[in-house]
């Protein structure tokens, strides 16, 4: 008879969960925030239950595709070595698209191209599933296929959740249930979101041979590239396109502000935008011979610091997208590292509250203090003007067309005499234009 290899969680179940009456912590949602919280708590031997509504962790999660490691490397020092990340991003690109042309800027440098790499492309179904395993190894229990429908509130204190008709109790609940956070809503920490604070992202994963990816993007081996697109890609609506190289696929998509989309006169639908984006010659040649294998969409919080929800209440903390921790500052769009970090700090706050066995609002307020000391809130306060600066519609139609017109003229060699370069540029930049530009610049300078 062979030996039974019992995962740690089973041993813990034998020891501790006999009554199954109460956990130390229940985490709602097994995405990055929830798993980061559970990972940290389990490392400190707390009894943690993660409830995930998907078939597996990652099944309901969608990202554009890039995780920046630097800010969170030391929060989870043992995690990165074996993590199923796709490709380290060694080439950054921005493409400004006009209706009939585009200007591309690529950046690559020693800082990007050497270890430790600052960012990686990721596919969440793979990454989160793997992360969930690591969390289980630390001793947390994860139950999938389970939707939490409500919180249990007793004497004003959240003390558990209802899931599939069952009541499950804990000292504290961490809501990591994503951008809509129905749980934080039920706990009275937030109201349904306002369209101006949210964008919607749509994305196709396009399978493409690794060799072709490397050839088309000028990459060596496992290196990866990222590119953001602005301008005609969204038909002048606030937003942009993105493209990330994965190991054997490309993540190609578009993000647009929901309120801008509603208000847009052009009345374009999102699927049509993505399809036109794919048919742009600049993109078509990159995805040629690729096979679409998945089409996904997700709402993204983009309201910045002003749109963050209440981060904690009696017996409850909110982390990740659920709290609004995602940020668009134009050249980078980030969410996943804020999710993981906020999950980590939520766990730290719980550990602190546990010392005094006090899970009141006051006791859990250390969560906000910890976030304020960390890159999370520092970034959010630093970039608090980003949503306003980026909401300028001229960024998405006027300037892309202008820049492309100038480029077209600068590079054209007519049959006759070619005009001098400076007058060519000045032709486009009259005083009125320059004045408007200076005004827009002032807003962008707040970034």
């Amino acid at each position, binding site marked *: *008879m*062979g*030996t*039974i*290899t019992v*995962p740690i*969680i*089973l041993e813990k*179940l*034998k020891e501790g*969960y006999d009554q*199954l009456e109460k956990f130390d912590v229940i985490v709602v949602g097994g995405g990055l925030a929830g798993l980061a919280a559970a990972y940290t708590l389990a490392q400190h031997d707390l009894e943690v*239950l993660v*409830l995930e509504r998907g*078939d*597996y962790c990652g099944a309901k999660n969608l990202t554009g595709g890039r995780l920046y490691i630097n800010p969170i490397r030391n929060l989870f020092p043992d995690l990165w070595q074996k993590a199923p990340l796709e490709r380290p991003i060694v080439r950054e690109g921005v493409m400004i698209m006009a209706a009939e042309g585009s200007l591309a800027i690529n950046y690559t440098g020693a800082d990007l191209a050497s270890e430790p790499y600052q960012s990686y492309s990721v596919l969440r*179904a*793979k990454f989160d*599933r793997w992360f969930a395993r690591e969390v289980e190894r630390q001793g947390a*229990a994860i*139950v999938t*296929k*389970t939707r939490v429908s409500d919180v249990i509130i007793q004497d004003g204190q959240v003390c558990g959740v209802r*899931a*599939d*008709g*069952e009541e*499950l109790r804990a000292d504290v609940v961490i809501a990591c249930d994503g951008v809509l956070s129905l749980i934080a809503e039920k706990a009275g920490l937030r109201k349904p979101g306002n369209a101006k604070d949210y964008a919607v992202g749509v994305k196709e994963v396009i*399978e493409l041979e690794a060799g072709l990816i490397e050839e088309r993007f000028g990459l060596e081996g496992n290196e990866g590239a990222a590119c953001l697109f602005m301008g005609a890609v969204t038909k002048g609506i606030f937003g942009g396109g993105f493209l990330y190289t994965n190991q054997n696929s490309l993540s190609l998509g578009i993000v647009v502000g929901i309120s801008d989309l509603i208000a847009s006169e052009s009345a374009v639908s999102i699927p049509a935008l993505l399809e036109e984006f794919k048919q742009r010659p600049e993109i078509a040649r990159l995805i040629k011979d690729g*096979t679409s*294998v998945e089409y996904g969409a997700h709402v993204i919080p983009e309201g910045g610091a002003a749109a963050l929800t209440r981060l904690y209440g009696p017996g409850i903390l909110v982390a990740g997208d659920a709290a609004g921790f995602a940020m668009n500052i134009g050249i980078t769009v980030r969410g996943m590292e804020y999710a993981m970090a906020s999950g980590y700090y939520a766990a730290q706050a719980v550990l602190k509250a546990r010392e005094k066995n006090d899970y009141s609002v006051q006791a859990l307020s250390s969560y906000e203090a910890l976030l304020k000391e960390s890159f999370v809130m520092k970034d959010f306060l630093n970039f608090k003007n980003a949503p306003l600066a980026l909401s300028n519609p001229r960024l998405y139609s006027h300037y892309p067309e202008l820049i492309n017109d100038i480029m077209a003229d600068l590079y054209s060699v007519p049959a006759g005499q070619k005009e001098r370069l400076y007058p060519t540029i000045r032709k486009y930049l009259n005083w009125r234009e320059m004045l408007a530009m200076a005004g827009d610049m002032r807003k962008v300078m707040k970034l």
Partner: protein
Amino acid sequence: MNIVVAMKQIPDLQQIRISNRRPVLQDVPLTFGGIDKSALEAAVVLKESLGEVKVWVLSAGSEELEDTVKEALAAGGDEAYLVIDQSLAGADSSIIAQVLAAGIKQLNDVDLILFGEGSGDNYSGQVGARVARLLELPLVSYARDIKIDGDTAQVVRVLEDCEEVLEVKLPAVITVLSDIGEPRIPSVTQILKAGKKPKQTAELDDLGISAGQSNPVITLSNLAPESNRKRIVVKNPVELVEKLKSENLIGG
């Protein structure tokens, strides 16, 4: 009373996609076959009506089985007996039958052995019958209902044009249809408790079966037939009708 439910670990069929005409199995979550889950449900229902019943979950496969089996223990299995060997993942029905029969011999006083009538992936429908033969036990197949009275089982057996009601002396092997019971969805508490339920694991050596036994049947190709679509694009129904006519697919 001891009821053994034999369950096969298979990939979640809904998660499989086709690439270059072949199924992509990498990273596909594992589960048990749908009919096997119904067999387990039947066993649990018998346990609920009879009392004093122990439901064993028996399975053979790769080491992921230890994780997959939690699902069955959550849905009402009392104890698991798992034969674990990487070579068992894609093994032939005849080998699996030998392994399962050997496993059942390790368990004491087995009264009833339930199988799904076919597995969720290969659907050969052979393993139940082979095990009955190896253990020299009576076999009833295609069961829609099972009632136990003492050491006898009354079984409703569904055939194409009729139903038979049979009586069989226990111990016996019964293969069941999915109609026998809708598998229950375990609660969170049941899932957590499943982790505490006992599991025995055995390797092929423990059962006196040599590992790496080659399959007597070798699959040369199982590609889906290639279809040559003409990929004709039409702009409107009139054009569609024209095209169909010109291809002689509809009458003029």
